[in-house]
């Protein structure tokens, strides 16, 4: 590769920065960021979170991989984010390529361009980045001097819609996977890159842990469904496995979290206290694809918080997981941390808390250093019947009991999250959300003896996701979603006694349809994404940039010639026999178990959590050779010795 191609583009970028909004997001130099000498490294990664810096920087996945890779000798990783349209226009005008913020090197100069997709709505931003980087959009057009474009993150569990545009995808935990990939690339480069791009991709594919779409042919039935997906090279496995890190205490990352100068969406020291969730909520893709549950130990958490706070100076600690109050030692963790940091005015937060795992002792520890402003719970379904269908086993009595204690202990506001458009849902199920809010307020007024009690109801549209029991379910159309929500709104507004105490927030059904198309799409959907990008589509996760009409227009231009349409992907119910686009990506879940769970959902039958009851044979542990890793360890967090 010519040496001049890795020179910093900063001098050219700098001249553009006075003309853009929030230039600080493009300059790098964050505390704890790393710049390694280019020439002393032989495998170089550009890591991208394909959204704006303010959203991408706090992303834990990117931060972890950035640190894991940079710790390795001879390997460097730099970060890049989506540039806002104002800078994109100037970069195109002045011929400045997509750059990393660490040392402003062009993305095209790296060996790997790794993108983390938390959501499918980042796909158009990948196109913008590839295009700005000067990397051909289609994988087949790339040469040996282009980076290997690699997708990861939860959306990568169905990478088919972007199969023509990425060179490979990795599913599951990235910590070990990136190092394995690094070694394969290092060896191939050391040998003088034999066999070109094809060869290195083949070596990756043959590990069984890297999906290389070009090595699989998709055959279709006359009715548009997939007939089969077949490897077209010898040694390429029929199914590609997800990666699972088993001992979280061995991977205490990020150790040195990045502290941005620019304002970002999460400004806190985040510690992942466990990974995976076996509560078994049937709508929840994260819970299904991250099994089994693996806890970080209380002492491991204590150490990470201590080092992380020292390294960052953050004022808040976030204890992250899919359902944080479910950690076997959450009470001791919260109390131990609250004791340690009371003097330092450090706040603690538990972003996801289940109603049935919440208790006031815990809440008191969490709010020792802060105000009791609001509590958030997610019953997800408005009616008892609906909650049985989705296997979110929270009864209304649980909820009322919990909010009753909370209001009795000084809280004044409760926020409730729900979904609309769940399988088998009727208007009645959704209207019961209003009743629940009324009961919460009535209880709050009773317990507190005051009238200034508020309950905010926040509703999102349900999108069926791959690798969940609802992967076969029909999605509710945007029109029906909107109609149902309008009925609920009218019911709440019409309530003279309680209506004014209920806040009502919801999104219209349109973005959910696009998300649904991308979530359960196959390779044919790639043409839609590309057309949307070429029509100017960017930042689809942002209300002010998202255009439903553009997506529908582009879908109409590209899908019918392939014999399908948007409804076919979204509102159509699938049958047991159908080959799903992601069947060759192995999340460990047994497809028959998922189907049984889908049938159980339709029968309104609940399934327990395997952490506390016998195994339900979801298939993950034996298939992936993993097991549940939980406490209690019985250890406590001791006070930190004061050395000043």
């Amino acid at each position, binding site marked *: 590769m010519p040496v001049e191609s890795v020179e910093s583009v*900063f001098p050219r970028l*700098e*001249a553009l*920065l*006075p*003309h853009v909004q*929030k*230039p*600080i997001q*493009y*300059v*790098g*130099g*964050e*505390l704890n960021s790393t710049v390694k000498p280019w020439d002393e490294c032989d495998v170089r990664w550009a890591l991208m979170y394909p959204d704006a810096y303010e959203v991408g920087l706090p992303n834990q996945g990117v931060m972890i991989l950035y640190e894991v890779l940079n710790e390795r000798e001879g390997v460097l990783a730099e970060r890049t984010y989506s540039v806002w349209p104002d800078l994109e226009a100037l970069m195109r005008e002045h011929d400045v390529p997509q750059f990393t913020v660490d040392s402003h090197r062009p993305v095209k100069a790296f060996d790997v361009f790794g993108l983390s997709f938390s959501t499918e709505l980042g796909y158009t931003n990948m196109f913008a980045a590839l295009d700005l980087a000067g990397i051909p959009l289609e994988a087949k057009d790339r040469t040996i001097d282009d980076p290997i474009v690699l997708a990861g993150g939860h959306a990568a569990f169905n990478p088919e819609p972007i199969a023509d545009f990425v060179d490979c995808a990795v599913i599951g935990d990235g910590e070990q996977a990136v190092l394995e990939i690094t070694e394969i690339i290092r060896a191939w480069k050391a040998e003088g890159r034999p066999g070109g791009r094809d060869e290195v991709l083949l070596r990756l594919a043959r590990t069984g842990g890297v999906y290389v779409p070009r090595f699989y042919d998709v055959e279709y039935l006359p009715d548009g469904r997939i007939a089969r997906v077949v490897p077209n090279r010898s040694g390429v496995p029929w199914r590609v496995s997800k990666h699972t890190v088993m001992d979280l205490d061995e991977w205490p990352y990020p150790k040195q979290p990045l*502290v941005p*100068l*620019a*304002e970002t969406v999460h*400004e806190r020291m985040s510690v992942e206290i466990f990974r995976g969730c076996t509560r078994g909520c049937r709508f929840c893709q994260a819970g299904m694809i991250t099994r089994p549950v693996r806890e970080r130990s209380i002492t491991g958490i204590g150490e990470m918080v201590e080092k992380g*706070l*020292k*390294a*960052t*100076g*953050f*004022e808040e600690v976030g204890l992250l997981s899919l359902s944080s109050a479910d950690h076997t030692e959450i009470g001791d963790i919260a109390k131990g941390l609250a004791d340690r940091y009371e003097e*330092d*005015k450090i706040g603690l937060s538990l972003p996801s808390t289940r109603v049935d795992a919440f208790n006031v002792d815990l809440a008191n520890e969490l709010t020792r250093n*802060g*105000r009791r402003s609001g509590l958030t719970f997610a019953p997800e379904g408005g009616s008892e019947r609906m909650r049985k269908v989705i296997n979110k086993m929270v009864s209304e009595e649980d909820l009322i009991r919990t909010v009753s204690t909370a209001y009795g202990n000084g809280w004044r506001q409760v926020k409730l999250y729900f979904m609309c458009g769940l399988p088998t849902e009727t208007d009645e199920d959704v209207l019961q959300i209003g009743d629940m809010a009324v009961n919460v307020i009535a209880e709050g007024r009773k317990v507190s003896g005051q009238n200034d009690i508020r309950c905010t109801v926040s509703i999102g549209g349900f999108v069926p996701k791959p690798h969940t029991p609802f992967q076969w379910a029909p999605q509710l159309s945007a029109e029906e979603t909107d109609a149902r929500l309008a009925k609920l709104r009218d019911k709440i507004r019409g309530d003279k006694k309680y209506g004014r105490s209920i806040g009502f927030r919801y999104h219209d059904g349109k973005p959910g349809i696009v998300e649904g198309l991308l979530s359960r799409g196959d390779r044919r959907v790639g043409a839609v994404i590309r057309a949307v990008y070429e029509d100017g589509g960017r930042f689809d996760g942002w209300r002010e940039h998202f255009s439903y009409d553009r997506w529908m227009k582009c879908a109409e231009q590209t899908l019918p010639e392939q014999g399908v349409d948007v409804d076919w992907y979204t509102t159509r119910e699938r049958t047991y026999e159908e080959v799903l686009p992601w069947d060759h990506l192995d999340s460990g879940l047994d497809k028959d178990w998922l189907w049984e769970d889908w049938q159980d959902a339709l029968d309104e039958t609940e399934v327990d959590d395997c952490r506390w009851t016998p195994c339900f044979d979801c298939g993950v542990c034996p298939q992936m050779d993993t097991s549940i890793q939980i406490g209690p360890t019985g250890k406590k967090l001791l006070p930190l010795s004061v050395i*000043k």
Partner: protein
Amino acid sequence: MQRIRLRYTKRGRLRFTSHRDFQRAFERALRRAEVPMAYSAGFTPHPKVSYANAAPTGTGSEAEYLEIQLAEARDPARLRELLDESLPDGLDIVDAVEVHTPSFADRLQASVWELRLDGVGVEEAEKAVAAFMAAETVEVQRRTKNGLRSFDARGAVCRLEALEAPADRPGDAACAILRLVVRHLTPAVRPDDVLSGLRATADLAPPVPAAVTRLAQGLLDEESGTVTDPLAPDRDAAPAASTTAAGPSAAQQVPEGPA
């Protein structure tokens, strides 16, 4: 309670730090450096920090000031080092003195600015400067929160001169340096207002945005047009060995721009 005044910089690419960004970064640095801060009372206590007269986003600075209040006394020199280590390179704490005198804000009467005009020859710059300085008033416009606003950019300018760029600049391209001393008045006249004024009076239009750096702030000597170190009175009033400076103070030598 001990109070300490600090001088800090915004250098290189970190000149794009906005004042809000700096505030967050500084408060985190206070935590990392374990500075025993005094906190405000109330529901959400804040460390007691007061900032003076921040330079606009995108302009570099060698002379920004703030004052902190501590719950326990600390050696200013040691505190400066700790805080400097805790901040990213470019946001550097370069001076610290214990407070012994009141009315610090009143001492920030004027600023010295350097404006690097790439692509502009010195003669052209000199001509524009002469036209600007010869004018009684120079009306310019600036977009503010309340819409477009017109004001005089000339009255606040106490000194303005064009210099040859130092020879160590890369390439042979023309480059002029403007040295500007401007009084802090209301409405504030910023370097870009003076550039607008140069454009209005002499059609001076740099092909690339000027690189602007504040070199000093402090008391203005009207006659000589020089600006003196605003921390000097505290330093002079202090008992021996309680002050420090990372380098020569602003009064003795004006730094040569961003590192």
